[in-house]
């Protein structure tokens, strides 16, 4: 084999791999099985670009499958996946490189709901040592229930400052949901419940600090 023919083969192989690279990203078996070829062809560069940027692909595939299951037209599916890829990028930047996939997805939901990325960043810094999927999900949920984004962020960040547990974030959401259901304005509900939740966290912490292990508290006269 001459040098010239080797170079030609190498160039052909390189060209083929470049041509097939975007398609490979879209070769998820679920997409192959359920999404038509033209849609997959338009999704391929988006997925490929997301993969190169280190973004999780699963939420993007998931969005395409959702659109397909709901009978959405191709253009709408592609637009939704493209928009989500953009939001995931913003979410990942706000959370930092070490963020898990559920965190990035939850942050993207919060950002999409209207929470500024800067607030996501603050939340990340307040709860550095643990996953913040649940607080982020609660944040997005509160906004979806009608709480103004800045008020929701203020409430969740306040709870994060006192290192509330996930169950306490969820408790805040349940309380606000109940209040809204009984006719209280979302902004009022969050204002009242947020303060009470922070107090509750601090009280519990103070009680656990003052309790001596193995010793019962004497009854109050």
């Amino acid at each position: 084999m001459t040098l010239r023919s080797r170079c030609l083969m190498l160039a052909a192989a390189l060209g083929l791999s470049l041509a097939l690279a975007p398609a490979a990203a879209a070769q998820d078996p679920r997409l192959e099985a359920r999404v038509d070829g033209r849609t997959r062809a338009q999704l391929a560069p988006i997925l490929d670009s997301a993969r190169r940027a280190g973004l999780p692909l699963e939420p993007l595939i998931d969005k395409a499958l959702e659109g397909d299951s709901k009978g959405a037209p191709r253009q709408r599916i592609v637009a939704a996946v493209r928009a989500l890829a953009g939001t995931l990028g913003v979410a990942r930047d706000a959370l930092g490189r070490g963020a898990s996939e559920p965190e990035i997805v939850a942050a993207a939901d919060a950002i999409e709901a209207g929470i500024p990325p800067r607030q996501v960043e603050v939340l990340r810094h307040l709860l550095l040592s643990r996953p913040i999927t649940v607080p982020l999900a609660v944040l997005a949920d509160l906004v979806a229930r009608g709480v103004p984004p800045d008020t929701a962020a203020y409430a969740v960040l306040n709870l994060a400052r006192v290192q509330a547990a996930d169950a306490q974030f969820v408790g805040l959401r349940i309380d606000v949901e109940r209040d809204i259901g009984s006719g209280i304005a979302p902004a009022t509900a969050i204002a009242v419940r947020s303060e009470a939740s922070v107090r509750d966290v601090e009280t519990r912490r103070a009680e656990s600090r003052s309790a001596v292990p193995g010793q019962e508290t004497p009854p109050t006269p």
Partner: protein
Amino acid sequence: MRHARLALVGGALLAAAPALAAGAQVVSIIDAGTGTVRAANAQATTAITLTPSVRRERPTSLLAASGTISFLESGRAASQGEIEGSFFSGARGPVRAELSGGAIGALHENRARTGEYHGRARLHILGGGRGVWLGAGGGRAWDSDAWRTSLAADIGAWARLGAVTVTGSFTRIAVQGVGYIPDPEPPLASGDGLYSDPLVAPLRSFHDALGSARWTRGPLELDVFAGARRDAGLQAVEEWLGASGTLWLTGNFAVVATAGGYPSDIEQQLPSGRYATIGIRVATRQPLAPRGAPVVARPLASDFQVIPGADSTRLIRMHVPGARKVELMGDFTDWRAVELDRTGVDRWEVRVPLRAGAHRLNIRIDDGEWGVPPGVTAITDDFSGVVGVLIVQ
């Protein structure tokens, strides 16, 4: 200018659709067509009609608004706007209550304005693909000359028979001060028991009997209807019937043909007429084939629960009285519909893998629209529908 305003209102209705969509199924439609219309005692005229409409549907409410502008052969235009809303109570056994209200305003070819507003309460008894209702209501109408009060009581029934849904109703309407109605001929005089002055005229009764049938199969929808009105005072009978066919060529585009007659409007004092039209329909999505059954008849889910299991799976359970099939799909099923199992009276459940975090999901009852389970936060999805966001600890 007035017509342009109405058209703008129609456009605004369509533009408002996404805002209305939170937690609901919203369909925006524009119908454009041409045809002939012949009002009683008048010559047939050709018209080009544009009808934007928006319909927002939730399990406990329905809001529909539409506007119509017709460009007539005479060079003039006529327009009409309409809004209608209903609230439904939860189910108490087979019984649900409905409270509804609406308003209509019209600007006619001769520049006359008419309009009305009305309210109604109904009690529905539902079960097994059929139902009956009993209702009463009232309203006020403006016939471009005077206000009139009307009272109505109705009883009706519907039944789903395979692909066909039939509905029948009987309504008694009492209208204060009904004067001259230009149909039937000859024009009636006050000596016949009619009064042109609504202030001195007594209540006058009409009995309406209506029947309709809707057949749907795939992209094709066919409707037929017939009605008869008996004027209790004059012993006169007015009859009308019509049919329409809609063929959905894609999920957003359909061809619509209609023909038939419509009765006189006794409240607004408008004459009866006949029409034949053909047109196109562009929709944000194909409306759920309503199968003729009233919205109130659709089964409602309640008591949605997510119960942790010993492994990483969770049991999803809900109550859906009267349902034949309940399905669920979400990111945890790769958005494939999974059927729930009936495990008791009206109790449905399924075990799914559900890890901690936020999940998106939809439920569907009896092959209806994909909706959101009760108690789960509903947000708009990216596909003109809604999706629930479930937080799992």
